[in-house]
């Protein structure tokens, strides 16, 4: 064989990889740009200059900024923007990993019952006013987190009994989702007006409770778990060709599956415990990415996270400002913005754009 052609294929591959890397970078810059833009958007009448000034004043002794601007931008807008970004990343990453590990394009934290589990935990905390760790300010958060992980454990346990087939796992997840939905319905049915409204609210999801103290914990956790999951990119790629092929490529399929599922469950649970149910992103971000850059998990995982962050950040900024000062629950806006975008990609078949 001639060396020319070998070199050629190498270049084709390098070009494809380069484009994917570029795409990842563009997404990253896009998220940053929207974040900067979002910093200057809000119900308070602050000019762009004042908003950025407030941020700059924190690091540089450049100019005097009013306390008002400082509180609005640093205490209210920034934590919320960061919360939107890390929530989007978590859901996007978890969605991509779950779909990959289960080889099923319909899987999302929602299909596996994680969201319903979290919602059920939250609803129990709302109605009974108690959680697994007693009463307190974070009762709902802790209960939601705990129930979400419990769901994953139950679903995995059930599938284990039948030799960990992917189908059993997904069906068990769907079934558990129904069960928890039934519990939520029951709680809604028997609870009073106040609690009912609170549960409905939690189910709609939202980022208005974002605070520095939560964001500070979540950022390192989300980044850590995302990087950890990216280490399994090659295994996920191989597993998408089927368990047998993956196993013949030296992968311990069951081990990778349980690690990836647990990590993404923790990732999802830790954000939705704070935000309530934000559907759609976990399901659709990976698909948007696959349509744009293909399925190589080395790129898919970070891009899916960034797309999630982008969609959630844009949606949340919209819901903060559309009929300001009234806010719209973010789940509603996410669907309104995300679904048409997704359908457009699906129909226009643009996935070969980089060739």
């Amino acid at each position, binding site marked *: 064989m001639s060396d020319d052609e070998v070199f050629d*294929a190498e270049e*084709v*591959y390098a070009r494809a990889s380069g484009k994917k890397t570029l795409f990842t970078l563009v997404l990253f810059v896009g998220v940053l740009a929207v974040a900067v833009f979002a910093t200057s958007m809000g119900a308070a009448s602050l000019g762009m200059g004042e908003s950025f000034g407030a941020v700059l004043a924190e690091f540089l002794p450049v100019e005097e900024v009013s306390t008002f601007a400082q509180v609005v931008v640093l205490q209210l807008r920034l934590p919320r923007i960061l919360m939107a970004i890390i929530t989007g990343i978590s859901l996007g990453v978890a969605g991509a990993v779950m779909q990959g590990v289960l080889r099923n394009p319909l899987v999302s934290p929602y299909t596996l019952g994680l969201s319903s589990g979290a919602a059920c935990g939250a609803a129990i905390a709302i109605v009974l006013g108690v959680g697994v760790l007693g009463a307190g300010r974070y009762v709902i958060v802790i209960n939601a987190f705990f129930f979400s992980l419990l769901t994953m454990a139950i679903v995995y346990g059930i599938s284990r009994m039948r030799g960990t087939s992917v189908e059993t796992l997904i069906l068990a997840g769907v079934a558990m989702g129904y069960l928890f939905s039934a519990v939520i319905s029951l709680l809604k049915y028997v609870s009073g007006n106040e609690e009912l409204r609170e549960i409905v609210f939690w189910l709609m999801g939202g980022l208005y409770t974002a605070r520095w103290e939560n964001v500070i914990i979540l950022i390192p956790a989300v980044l850590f778990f995302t990087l950890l999951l990216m280490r399994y990119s090659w295994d996920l*790629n191989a597993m998408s060709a089927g368990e*047998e*092929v993956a196993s013949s*490529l030296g992968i311990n399929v069951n081990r990778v599956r349980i690690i990836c599922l647990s990590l993404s469950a923790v990732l999802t649970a830790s954000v939705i415990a704070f935000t309530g149910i934000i559907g759609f992103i976990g399901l659709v971000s990976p698909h948007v990415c696959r349509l744009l850059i293909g*399925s190589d998990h080395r790129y898919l995982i970070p891009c899916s996270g960034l797309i999630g962050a982008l969609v959630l950040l844009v949606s949340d900024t919209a819901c903060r400002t559309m009929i300001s000062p009234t806010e719209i629950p973010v789940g509603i806006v996410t669907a309104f913005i995300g679904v048409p975008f997704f359908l457009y990609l699906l129909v226009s078949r643009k996935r070969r754009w980089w060739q």
Partner: protein
Amino acid sequence: MKLKVKDLSFSYGSANTLEDITMEVDKGEIVSLVGPNGAGKSTLIKCIDRILKPQKGTVFVDGKEAARLSSKDFSKMMGYVPQSTLEVFPYTVFDIVLMGRRPHIGWRVTSNDVKVVARTLRFMGIEEFASRYFDELSGGEKQKIAMARALAQEPKVLLLDEPTSNLDIRHQLEVMNIVKKLVQEKKISAIMAMHDLNLASRFSDNMVMLKDKGVFTVGDPKSVLTPANIENVYGVRAEVRNGHMGRPYVMPIEPI
């Protein structure tokens, strides 16, 4: 590289599907596993590749016990080509073949890996597909790509599970020719589970005929494919003629 299977038994649940299988494959040899449906051809392939864990028995690779090797080291020796490949998500052909490098690489793809993939694609005559999507290809092309992935592992033994089922006669011949060329040029061995006795006869050096969970007979195609053996194993009356290049050609007449 010499592969030896000794006293291997495997069962799903309570029903035994393989019992005390013993066989050997020499370096540079193509061995076909033949036998009726349910005789355990695919199961044996999967047991050899450690996809299934046999309850009893050992597989030796060059005298070393396979079960003691790390899964990574083992996967550098054995390449597996499944009966059919279904990709749920869109991957390019290059990406799929690159998956075969998984046992050799960490997270980062080296230029050597890319070179191996490119060389494999060229060897298989499918380099023009490199940036095409897997789901756009025909069945024969998909089969070649699955083989390319296994080849990219740079294995010493290639395991093929019914590589020609679902293929038209042209693709059947192409795929078998590639296997033959591989074994000759790369000095590796190949074990194939085969349904088509005539293709098996034409391309294998040795055949293992399975019946009722065990090995019925072993030998070169001429000694294995006799009317008596076929009648005994398949329950079919057949004529065996002298075919292409002196290989036996089986003409099934009627079931008994």
